[in-house]
């Protein structure tokens, strides 16, 4: 069975993050929720498949262009409260850098762009400090009008 271009784009994006975000972060795709933070110092990045819509701009003859939303969540736990802000911002920066390293995802995509971000620091309940962020990316890609498994 041929993979759709959507699936190939999502797999390539997750692989690009996994290869380039760097230790100690682990990168997973669509893992079960909630994310488990086993220990102080753990960093987790989760890539979540999102919706897709036809793009506004016209594609070439016989082509269809789409914009695919991908949500990336990142989590950290730190030893001290004053470490959590720098840790979550550093992880976010590494995710952005990895996502934009190859905006074509090996020739599968037209572009990868930033489409929104939130961050939240967790305090309380006796737990060690932690934080999480959500970063949305919009990924453009083109397929044949007639076949979503054919790159255009």
């Amino acid at each position, binding site marked *: 069975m041929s993979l759709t271009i959507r699936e190939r784009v999502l797999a390539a994006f997750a692989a690009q993050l996994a290869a380039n975000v760097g230790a100690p972060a682990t990168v997973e795709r669509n893992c079960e929720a*909630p994310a488990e933070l086993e*220990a102080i110092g753990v960093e987790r990045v989760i890539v979540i498949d999102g919706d897709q819509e036809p793009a506004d701009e016209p594609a070439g003859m016989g082509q269809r262009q789409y914009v695919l939303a991908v949500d990336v969540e990142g989590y950290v736990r730190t030893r001290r409260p004053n470490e959590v802000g720098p840790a979550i911002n550093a992880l976010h920066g590494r995710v952005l850098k990895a996502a934009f390293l190859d905006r074509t995802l090996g020739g599968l995509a037209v572009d990868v762009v930033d489409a929104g971000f939130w961050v939240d620091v967790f305090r309380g309940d*006796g737990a060690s400090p932690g*934080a999480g962020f959500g970063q949305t990316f919009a990924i453009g890609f083109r397929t044949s009008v007639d076949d979503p498994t054919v790159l255009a």
Partner: protein
Amino acid sequence: MNAFAAGIEALATDPDMAVAGTLMPAAGGSSACRVLLQRRDKDMPVGETHARSQGWVAVIPQADVQTRPRRGDELAADGKSFLIGDVATDSAGVAWRLDLDVIG
């Protein structure tokens, strides 16, 4: 020794329930103790989602550790290193109850 202290002593000497530990105050030094360990995870709500922060609780007989442990001290037990968070005395006043996080 009152009945509560005898009870915690019995639990802490049961090899199936307790493990050997070492308490390491941030100020320095260390002391051996017996530890009753149990998992206590915490929900970590962040933004539009949440994560699970794995945590542990340790109960240590005050007979083993006379000085109250403090937040930021460390405990080694069961092959793990823990950072001590909240410290409380149990309701009978015979053991320390410690909130722990594993140090990765």
